[in-house]
């Protein structure tokens, strides 16, 4: 954990090797990126169709909803691209193939995350970024310096919070090897949630998403500040600026969970 530079380097080495091997088949790679782009864009098509029937959802306009959709998708896109492979940890624990990672001179998490690095996952990030860009041209906001700075900060913090959820979920798979489904509920489920305005959900649910799994810090709280919207639950406005802290805290907790998981790894017989 201490050697960040070394970890990034090893991640780059492994990812580069996988990229090279996928680029051998250029057309199939292009098709995979496009498919990923289109499949993830379906989520937005659904929102589009809703707005063809109504002018607002939960009090939010199409452009505002697109802003929420875009910020959540970009954050999640970054995480899915960089950490998407940790989902498979349960498989590796079950068949013992994690052993190979444990005898190499690099952190296991880095190796698991970079394994089968899929550049095709760029598709989700790209379509999220397009929607976000489009929403920014349509929104009529009073931009302040704080709002301008908050935008990149929330995208990166959001990616880190999603990352913590990914890693914590993967760590849980050390004990429950078939928990990948439960993990998806938090990652993909969380993403779908954050793509909609918080006002469409029940109050208790929003509280849960804020304080139990801190997903609301990914985009809701900072985005509502940017949009100049009131919080759905009576929360103080300055929470909009806390995502970096929440991200750091979640990552630290996820890191501890991961460590505990590795230490309790039992490998398989033979």
């Amino acid at each position, binding site marked *: 954990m201490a050697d960040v530079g070394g970890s990034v380097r090893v991640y780059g080495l492994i990812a580069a090797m996988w990229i090279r091997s996928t680029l051998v088949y250029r057309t199939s790679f292009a098709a995979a990126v496009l498919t990923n782009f289109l499949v993830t864009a379906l989520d937005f098509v659904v929102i589009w169709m809703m707005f063809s029937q109504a002018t607002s959802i939960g009090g939010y306009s199409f452009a505002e909803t697109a802003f929420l959709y875009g910020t959540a998708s970009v954050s999640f896109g970054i995480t899915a691209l960089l950490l998407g492979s940790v989902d498979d940890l349960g498989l590796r624990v079950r068949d013992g193939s994690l052993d190979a990672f444990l005898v*190499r001179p690099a952190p296991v998490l880095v190796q698991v995350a970079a394994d089968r690095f899929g550049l095709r996952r760029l598709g989700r990030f790209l379509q999220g970024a397009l929607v976000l860009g489009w929403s920014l041209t349509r929104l009529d906001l009073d931009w302040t310096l704080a709002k301008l700075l908050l935008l990149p900060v929330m995208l990166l913090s959001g990616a880190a919070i999603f990352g913590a959820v990914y890693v914590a979920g993967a760590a849980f798979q050390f004990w429950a090897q078939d928990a990948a489904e439960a993990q998806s509920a938090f990652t993909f489920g969380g993403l779908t949630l954050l793509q909609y305005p918080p006002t469409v959900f029940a109050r208790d649910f929003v509280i849960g998403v804020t304080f139990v799994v801190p997903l609301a810090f990914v985009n809701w709280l900072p985005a509502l500040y940017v949009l100049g919207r009131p919080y759905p639950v009576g929360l103080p406005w300055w929470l909009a600026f806390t995502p970096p802290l929440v991200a750091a805290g979640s990552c630290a907790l996820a890191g501890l969970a991961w460590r505990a998981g590795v230490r309790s790894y039992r490998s398989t017989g033979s």
Partner: protein
Amino acid sequence: MAEDFIEVDGVEKVFDVRRKTGLLRRERHQVRAVDSLTFGVPRGEMVGYIGPNGAGKSTTIKMLTGILTPSAGRLRVAGIEPSRERTRLARRIGVVFGQRTTLWWDLPLIDSYRLMHRMYRIPDARYRENLDRCVELLELGRLLDTPVRQLSLGQRMRGDIAAALLHDPEVLYLDEPTIGLDVVSKVKVRGFLRELNEERGTTVLLTTHDLTDIEQLCKRVMVIDHGRLMYDGQLDGLHQVGESERTLVVDLERELPPLDVQFARVVKVDGPRQWLAFPAAQSAAPLVAQIAAEYPLADLSVREPDIESVIARMYAREEPSLGGTTAPS
């Protein structure tokens, strides 16, 4: 034993096993995979680590590499506690698991090597020298561009051994390196390991089912069963302790009554074929000479005792005999 390269002192590994005993009820019990294990291996030694399935061999290797954390006891490799400083230790050790590969399954063999080169930060000249040597001795030349999943078991094993040696490890752990290999591959692998140990002074710890591996490679052998060290000493001593016997199978030109020869007894007769058991520590040559001189001998073969029967005999003697002869060090 203070300056042993590998130090294992009173090491235990206990697994919690949960078993479903009813619809909702689960029973928890503990399995002691390794129990108060103590041994030391000096630098440059080649040690065979044998025992039946489930005896604790792999668990020991996994603790030595840092994959598993011991439940109790002290363990050091090159002065490093493996489970605490796994990544630091990784640069100094090489590991080959017979049952599974450490190579990147979907990529050509050479890609795995290139990645190891950079991941272990091996100096370019050193990498090229080690790779060339492995490619030549393990005959990997034509396989380098083949995806690992397309390699046969023997080819993959050779590929794995090369991968484990590119960074000049001080110790090499081999977990069943010859399991499932054909005779030619076995011979190649053994020859390579012998040379590695003799020329580079690499410490080698190898687990195996195959006593021939041990006979051809190791002076010292450790036997583990039910997680306990049953024997630690010379291979010859193991045969004495285990009172193991080799079998001489002779085909005579015609049916004869059981042969009467010194130091051997006939255990089975089937037509012109007879099975003679003799102490494993003894040479077969004088026995063969005597039979050839006195009887009409058509053909013969020698069968080695297998580990299971040696251990079974040790059990029959009840007491676990630690250090039947003293360990060479």
